């Protein structure tokens, strides 16, 4: 019995290795030295209740879509990476959360409903939460379920299924009204938003953009001198 188990284990190791190498090889054949880059911007009208002492923008990821350059806080292993997702959450122009997902499977999940924290020191030294998560109006998790060879990504957001080819984008502005969340149409967004500001209704725009193929050589670590 023991020998059989050992044999299975010994057999499975090369199989796993072959599978891994095969997967990477397929990824490399399909995507080569590039990856599909998707940006997800969540912008809320009044999700932040204050701003700590003025500081320069402390975001650690920098994106230049013109040059297709992605500056990350540290060096990333890009072997087999075929999908990059950058998610940022902001309110009133103040970014309070960001996340960069690099995927080798072409799939990624962003839990937009998860509470986000942005704290400042309080009067007695305790942390004061400056993000009002109730004012973030989102429909649920955002899943990238598939990345196709031609750069198209398939997404699931709440009950919606979205397909975005390279260069395509999708956005939704949700307002939390007394009757519940409501999507605002693009032709009346300004009036509706003014109304939200006036009545202090929470509103959030979720914008997804497929930025197409980006070269892996454009991913740079944010270390001076590199």
């Amino acid at each position, binding site marked *: 019995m023991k020998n059989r188990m050992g044999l299975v284990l010994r057999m499975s190791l090369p199989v796993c290795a072959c599978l891994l190498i095969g997967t990477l090889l397929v990824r490399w054949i399909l995507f080569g030295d590039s990856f599909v880059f998707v940006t997800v911007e969540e912008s809320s009208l009044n999700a932040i209740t204050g701003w700590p002492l003025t500081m320069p923008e402390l975001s650690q990821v920098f994106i230049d879509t013109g040059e297709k350059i992605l500056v990350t806080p540290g060096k990333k292993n890009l072997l087999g990476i075929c999908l990059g997702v950058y998610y940022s959450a902001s309110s009133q122009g103040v970014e309070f959360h960001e996340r960069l997902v690099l995927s080798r499977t072409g799939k990624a999940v962003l839990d937009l409903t998860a509470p986000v924290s942005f704290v400042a020191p309080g009067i007695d030294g305790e942390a004061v939460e400056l993000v009002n998560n109730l004012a973030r109006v989102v429909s649920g998790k955002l899943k990238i379920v598939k990345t196709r060879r031609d750069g198209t990504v398939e997404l699931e957001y709440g009950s919606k299924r979205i397909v975005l080819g390279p260069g395509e984008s999708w956005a939704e502005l949700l307002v939390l009204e007394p009757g519940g969340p409501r999507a605002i149409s693009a032709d009346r967004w300004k009036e509706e938003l003014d109304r939200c500001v006036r009545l202090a209704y929470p509103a959030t725009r979720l914008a997804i953009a497929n930025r197409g193929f980006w070269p892996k050589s454009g991913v740079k670590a944010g*270390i001076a001198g590199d």
Partner: protein
Amino acid sequence: MIRRISAQAFQACEILEGRTTMTGTRVAGSRLVGRRMTGTKATGSRVTGTRVAAVIVTVLCILLNIAAPLDGHASQRSIPSKPLVLIGEPSRDDGASLWSRAGLVSRLEDSGYELGKTLFVYTPREPYGDLDSGAYTLRQMLDETIEATGCSMLDVAAYGVSGLVLRFGLEMGIIRDGLVDNAIMLSTPQRGSFLADLLLQACTVVKHECLFERETRYSRFSPFGDVSPTLDPGTISSRSTGDLPASIGSSYFSWEGEAWWVAQRAREIYEPLYSQYVQERFLSLPYVPVDSPKQTFAGWIKQNRPHIWENCIAAGIRPPFGPLPGDALDGPPQAGYDFTVAYYELLAMAVGRNQYVVRMASSGSLGQALFGPSHGPMPGSLKDAIIQYGLKALLHYAKKALVTVKAEVQRMIADSIVSSIGYLDSAESQFLRRLVKEEVLVNLGTSAGQRFYRVPANYYLDQINRRSSSSSYTRNTRFVSITGRVTNLLGIVWPQVAPNNLFCEVDSAVPPQGPRDTIRVFNGFLSPSYLNLLKDKQVQDSIVSLLLEPDELAQVTTGHSGQQQIRVSSWQPSYVSPPWGTAGDQVFQVSVSIPSLPEGWGCAVWVEGYDGGRWLPVPGWNQLLTSGTKTDVILKHTAYRIGLRLVRTGTVNPYTPGGKVESAFEREVSGKALLSVDPLSTAEGAPWGNSPGEDMWGGSTPSEGVWGPGAGYMGDDNGPATVPAAPGSGTDPAGTGSWDDSPGENGPPGSAQSPAAGDGIPGDIPSVRVVYRNKHTTLWKPHETYHVYWEVDFGDGETVVLQGQPRLKIAHTFNPSGQYLVRAVSYDNHNDVLVEKSWNVVTGGEPEVREFCCSSIIPPEVELELIGPQKWVTGKHALFSGEVTWKLPDGAHIVSVDCDPGERFHVLWERSGEFAVYWAARLTIDYELEDRVIRVKNTYVTEKQVDVFTPGITR
């Protein structure tokens, strides 16, 4: 004008066209000789026997524990001859000084310093208040030290802001020039600190948030009240220029106060724009993916409101009240005079966006909170209603109270941060204003190549450093800058805060460099712990070495062995001297040529004289050489030496498109100079054309002139303004002593002759060897600067552009009852601003016609003539001489005339053909306009065609 120095000491110095002659008596003292010997690096052709003997003696000395090194590498460390004062940053801490804690005091004691006799430690217990009051404090302390020790000069090492105060005192004359021999400044924010900018912005934002909170407190807590909304951004059109008053940037501008001005700009311009930015950038539909997802508010303004950006930020390079009055640099800080308009706009931008966030957080009335979107189902009972609505009311007031709490907490935090800094007394500290960087980087967040925009901020500090720059060649104190370099891990993402050291960037820690100044940058000090820098053995060794070891002196040997290569550095000067022997009346011509230099760097060449106590620069005896240029210096006395150093001619801290701010001084840049020395016969005197004591105007009037062989020209600025005190005489280096109007005894300029050429041509005439046809006998390019057109802005919306008319005379009708700022700008042929003049016009009840007159630069009439053969043969020197004549407009006068390759020069062709000989003359002209003097340098080039034949034997 040549001035006299008394008695036995010599001093006749002249610089003419890059040629320097120095004559003088010999120094009798052995001290100088000893010093020279110890500082000399053996470089040349010493005979082997001498070397062997030197090695044997050295070994014996070491064995006998006698420090008697013979060359520069093993130079003797002398005992301290001057007291050293260590000055820390102001600190209320009564403990040991940072110097003691770092171990530097004991290190200095080991090197021969004695605490209380030659070593003094001073830590101010109170903040300096301002730069000038701090400088007076330091002066008093230094005077007391001088009195206690009886010495005439001392060395000072100052840490952090104390270094800035010390330098300010020296620059402004509060501390006498020359009193401090070496001013060692460690991690000193010479050009400001990014932290001061952050702190000042934070304090400003907090102050305005507290003001906003107090103003809106009643309406926020009132059951039916609400804070007023942001002003409608629709009132700021896309073509708005920012609504700055026309008088801003001039002395006619007025405001109710700095805080009032910032608040007004924030409320009227930047807060509405920020609300528009938030809506358009983050909430608009349909969504259009932006090219720069990380674009900031400033970047958005630059892209979407370019007129506001250009008018308020890009053009706001002067303070709101215009430039500082001439004597205001040493006065107390004056709001509106020290920061630029652009920096005030940046402050207003920060206040505006913060105020928008706070306003949004404060908005909403109690009614909206109770019956708003999340009111849920109607309560079934009174108890449920009380609980439901009571909780909502509580939450509503908690939210309102949070604004108050946040404002107060931030104020407390800001106060505690400020009070923890020893040299600041409060958040409103005037000293903090002085420390804001000269230029701040604004994060635009756009493409990688355009992420940051450099904005002039601290106009006051900029003016101080400009003044420092202009006196850097003449001051008698050597500035030593020591700092640490730390890799900023967020360098690409966040370079605007600190490209290097987290507290004090390298380029900010280096003041405007004089040629004799020294820089030391050490790796790996993770500030803020300053002790890390001071504790380091390398830093301590460096301080001791700078104080006690003589300068390394390279000796250039004579002979025909070719040129000797000398390394020149951007961090420290290199010194060279000819091989002085024991015989008297030696004269050497030292030729310095610079084959190539890194871009943005030039090589300063100057002469230093020994006054019996120390080496001092000879004022006026300096030149800046660029790649491919050369100069000759003639030394006639052992008490002189030549200094060489790379100096920055490009931007100090260039911003590279990759997102990184480069510091010119972060790493040592080196180049090479080629030197050759030729002995001259003293009987022949100075190898130059005319007596420096004569008036050498070649033309009939100062506005007409001719310069060429036999004519000679020396402008005021070219003359030796001062020379150091006589060698060995011990006179005051500050320049006291008597001066002579006549040349020194060895200095009558006579026939120029030098045996240097070796091929039979006179040594003082440059020779150009030509092999290929594309060889140019001068590398100077024609360059002129003169007025081309005027741009006149009448301040009432009308602007005119006038071509030509260097003497502007224009009339304009102004509407009644108005105040107008009229601005006339003259642009030159390179499209740069030449002259700028403004007038303030106030009109009465009727339309008024006003006339404006202003002058700009009129080009002179210059003619060049190159005289020489039209046909020549290969292998023989052809003599060419150039002559330049000029006619200047009124108000202009010539400062100097330079020419290349010389006023007379030889050309030697090595092959036959048709060749062009080029000759260039450069005129430095001062234009005296109404209220200023503008100096331009025009270069003119002429050429002459020559047919060159190869001589042959005809049968």
